[in-house]
């Protein structure tokens, strides 16, 4: 397949996944804000949303203080914010539009409809009423995007690059959500509010559709260590790092070319370390340091995939 086509499909998938994860983060915060919270906790929670996406500085410069309403507006509708849902859905649609001949018509129609519906929203109306419905809508559109991809596409190279993009983005996003939220909760825990801590953990789990999974797997109280284990090491947990890296590695092997050997090796190494890793060892290093190193590795994989396949350095 054309390198440019692979590039567009890969980024289409990454942006779709990113839009979903932004919506998940915002949704959790929104739900948390319905619980009794101190002003500091509220600010901390919404600040964390910006933190996950590395946007604190950019946000502060433009909007100053952190208020729920301003952060939601910034993360949903601001077209100058590259991580806003607006920007992600736009980029996703522009990427698929550029290669609409390579995807099934159902895929294109679905992505195009997502963009048209989103663009037709009136921000004031959405922000003024039940914003939760909007987050649910974004998640549903992402489910639909995945479903129509798996359900209609030939499982060829095109399909593999879409999967590669989805899972690399998901690995990155889950690691970031876990990192920022974990730090925040630990910080709050020092103040010794057990009930609040429980809600914070359950909210984090819900944001990755992991609450019911946690109950099923552990059948026990929520503890930080188990939450981390579920989201990092459990290969049967669809949004975990282990699962995401397994998919990245598998799909990478299926598209391998003559110069991608080292990239495969690194992906395989990372996948194995998750597959055979123990949560005790991770906590010995410290979860934050572990996740920082992990994000460095996924970033490296992203650059290597671009060089090996997407940006045609192999041609002339």
């Amino acid at each position, binding site marked *: 397949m054309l390198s*440019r086509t692979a590039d567009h499909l890969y980024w289409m998938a990454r942006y779709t996944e990113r839009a979903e994860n932004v919506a998940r983060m915002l949704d959790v915060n929104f739900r948390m804000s319905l619980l009794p919270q101190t002003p500091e906790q509220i600010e901390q929670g919404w600040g964390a949303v910006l933190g996950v996406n590395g946007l604190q500085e950019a946000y502060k410069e433009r909007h100053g203080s952190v208020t729920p309403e301003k952060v939601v507006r910034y993360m949903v509708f601001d077209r100058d914010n590259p991580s806003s849902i607006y920007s992600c859905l736009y980029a996703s649609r522009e990427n698929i539009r550029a290669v609409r001949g390579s995807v099934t018509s159902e895929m294109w*129609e679905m992505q*195009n409809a997502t963009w048209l519906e989103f663009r037709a929203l009136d921000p004031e109306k959405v922000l003024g009423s039940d914003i939760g419905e909007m987050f649910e809508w974004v998640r549903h559109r992402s489910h639909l995007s995945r479903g129509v991809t798996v359900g209609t596409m030939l499982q060829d190279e095109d399909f593999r690059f879409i999967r590669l993009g989805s899972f690399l983005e998901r690995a990155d996003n889950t690691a970031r959500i876990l990192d920022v939220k974990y730090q925040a909760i630990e910080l709050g825990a020092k103040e010794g509010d057990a009930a609040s801590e429980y809600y914070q953990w359950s909210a984090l789990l819900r944001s990755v559709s992991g609450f019911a999974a946690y109950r099923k797997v552990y059948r026990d109280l929520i503890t930080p260590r188990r939450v981390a284990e579920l989201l990092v090491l459990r290969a049967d947990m669809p949004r975990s790092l282990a699962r995401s890296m397994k998919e990245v590695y598998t799909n990478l092997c299926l598209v391998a070319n003559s110069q991608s050997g080292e990239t495969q090796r690194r992906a395989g190494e990372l996948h194995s370390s998750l597959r055979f890793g123990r949560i005790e060892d991770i906590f010995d290093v410290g979860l934050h340091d572990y996740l920082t190193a992990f994000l460095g590795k996924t970033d490296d994989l992203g650059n290597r995939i671009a060089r090996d396949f997407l940006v045609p350095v192999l041609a002339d």
Partner: protein
Amino acid sequence: MAGNFFNEMVDSDGMVRPHYRGFADWLRDTPSERVARKRAEADTLFHRVGITFAVYGEQEGTERLIPFDIVPRILPATEWKALSAGLRQRVKTLNLFLHDIYHDQEILKAERIPAEHVLKNAQYRPEMQGLDVPNGIYAHIAGVDIVRAGQGEFYVLEDNLRVPSGVSYMLEDRKMMMRLFPELFARYSVAPVEHYPDMLLDSLRTVSPKGVAEPVVVVLTPGAYNSAYFEHAFLAQQMGVELVEGQDLFVKADVVYMRTTQGPRRVDVIYRRIDDDFLDPLVFRKDSKLGVPGLLSAYRSGNVTLCNAIGTGVADDKSIYPYVPEMVRFYLGEEPLLNNVPTYMLRKPDDLKYALAHLAELVVKEVHGSGGYGMLIGPAASKAQIEEFRKRIIDAPEKYIAQPTLALSACPTFVESGVAPRHIDLRPFVLSGREINMVPGGLTRVALGDGSLVVNSSQGGGTKDTWVLEN
């Protein structure tokens, strides 16, 4: 001009023509709410499918729908049979003409066409002189614009031999009609058109460079912001070939390759939807970012086929158009089956004199214009417009031709006030490879304004499904 025209549906006594009776009955028996709902549904579907086109001169990224009308344009089998025979003859002739002027120029030597009209034409490409192309075919895809006037006779208005577009609308219109009104297709036996992409691919394969067993075909597009991008993507997908941009291709040792995730892959046939000027910055426009450096050299070496060939514009130019009937006689020794519209060439003093005296009755077109831009429709123009055009003609008469204003045939069409006749044309797509092929019908365009004769989508024209009946 609007009063006296051929009505496709109703004869001069006000009786519905036999081939339209089934439709007229259906329309009468179908509740108007249902029709209205279906029309709205068509709009939503076209938007969702993204069957849009970009409009030049408007903000970048502006996407508009081409209005779709649900009243089909119906042609009885006998009419199509005559029309298609005429199209074959005409396209065959035009390809022979192109081969001739880029080789021995017999028609110029015989003085059937003044040599300077060809050799000094901006569309004549000296780079093509003496070059042999596979099967001697230059215009692999031709979109011949046909209108019906007078008592219903067909005329060729224009031969589009460069990069004619619109075939995707023909296919999508059919798909839409079948989705909205399946019951109509039960009443009528409509000749299918859905196999066009297969026919196109087949045609493109037959003109691949010699010795290539499994030719790799690609569609070359200027990119997602081109007005016809939807069509480029659509055709590539339907044919199952790669849709490439200039940046995806490169030339090495006179061979064209595309950049793939598995390394370079050789390309044999390029169905290009980019104008000659932009194909190769080393030879044509230096500032072109759309083309592929070295492409012409690869082409001239016979390592790749371009469809259509370079330099076909000289055969569909409005200054050459008046000579097409003469070409038919010269190359085939036959009488032309399709009428040309009588044309005054304003570089001729007599024609100029006549035209200037009759501007209010004539249509004046720029020789090199297209898309309905830069033309005067005398009967519809104001005095001031006519006088302004008169000045332009006197300044440079060689830039213009004039034709009588044809009373284009009209077909019932949904408009705000209900169903009313609107003027239409027809663009059949004629494919030339080893042989000449076409799917029955083509794209019917309709001028939506009352009395308007301009069907171009860039000027607010719409489209209709075109039915050729089988019997």
